């Protein structure tokens, strides 16, 4: 018997295990943590223990019930998440810039060049921006409140990074356009594979077990 089944059997014996597992799956997908899920299930258990009804009869389909709860879930920023966000931002910026520059150079039949200092500055700026995300909640709500503001913010950031690259002088990273495009796409593809692998083997339910309220 899986540990989830055992946990449900012990803590929510009046809730049909299949129904409970359906609710757990939906709530996990929506980002609820173990404590929130445990509390939600215990309330179902408490209700059914008194009413004698089945979960399906009283609460409907588990997926729909879990959705209706509309639990407040948010990103809980941990140091590793902050570092991860910064790393992703940096890699996306690096790969994207290389690929874009290579494509542009190929189209204009010019040399593919990137100012190293400008690139480094851009990497630091993107990394710092991503690493500061835990503090954005308030300002972000204002800045990104509407789709128009989203577009303006993204375009503005792109303009700043582009200007840095255009205006920076000093040693240049020079590659054949095709090589620069290849390098950029390789970096982006590698990131994609890493993110995919991390999500597959990443946070497992045992990292955040169900926690039931205790009195």
């Amino acid at each position, binding site marked *: 018997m899986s540990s989830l089944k055992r946990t449900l059997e012990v803590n929510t014996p009046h809730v049909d295990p299949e129904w409970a597992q359906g609710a757990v799956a939906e709530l996990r997908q929506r980002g609820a943590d173990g404590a929130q899920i445990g509390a939600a299930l215990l309330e179902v258990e408490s209700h059914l223990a008194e009413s004698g009804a089945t979960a399906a009869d009283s609460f409907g389909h588990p997926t729909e019930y879990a959705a209706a709860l*509309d639990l407040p879930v948010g990103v809980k920023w941990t140091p590793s998440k902050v570092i991860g966000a910064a790393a992703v931002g940096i890699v996306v910026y690096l790969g994207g810039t290389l690929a874009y520059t290579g494509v542009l150079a190929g189209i204009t039949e010019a040399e593919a060049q990137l100012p190293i200092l400008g690139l480094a500055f851009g990497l630091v700026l993107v990394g710092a921006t991503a690493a500061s995300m835990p503090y954005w909640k308030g300002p972000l709500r204002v800045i990104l409140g509407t789709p128009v503001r989203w577009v303006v913010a993204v375009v503005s950031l792109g303009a700043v990074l582009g200007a840095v690259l255009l205006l920076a002088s000093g040693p240049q990273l020079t590659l054949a356009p095709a090589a620069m495009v290849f390098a950029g796409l390789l970096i982006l593809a590698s990131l994609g594979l890493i993110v995919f692998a991390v999500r597959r083997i990443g946070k497992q339910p045992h990292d955040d077990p169900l926690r039931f309220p205790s009195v």
Partner: protein
Amino acid sequence: METSHTQEWPAQWLRGALALCALSVIDSHAPLHGYAITQHLSAAGLGSIGGGTLYPLLGRFERDGLVGAEWVAGDNGPAKKVYTLTDRGRERLHDDAKRWRHFSQTTNALIARKVERA
């Protein structure tokens, strides 16, 4: 007019009135857990309210600061989450009850003649 305690009302009607009725029940009988709230609503003539309807509503009340909640030991059973009205909830109940009374007077006047003819 006779009111059957087991009468099931149209879902659209209940959707409009349930929040106000639930707040009223909690105000009158707090602290109350979810199943007890459904029992009071049923006894008052609202019919059977399923958990799938009530608990998301209670969750919204809690997030909006209209009710406070805490877990207490159950009598020979699982722990129960009991709800009480906050000052904000009492204010909301009072305001909405006033408005509902006006609303129901308006609708009653509109359909009065139809009911007499029936």
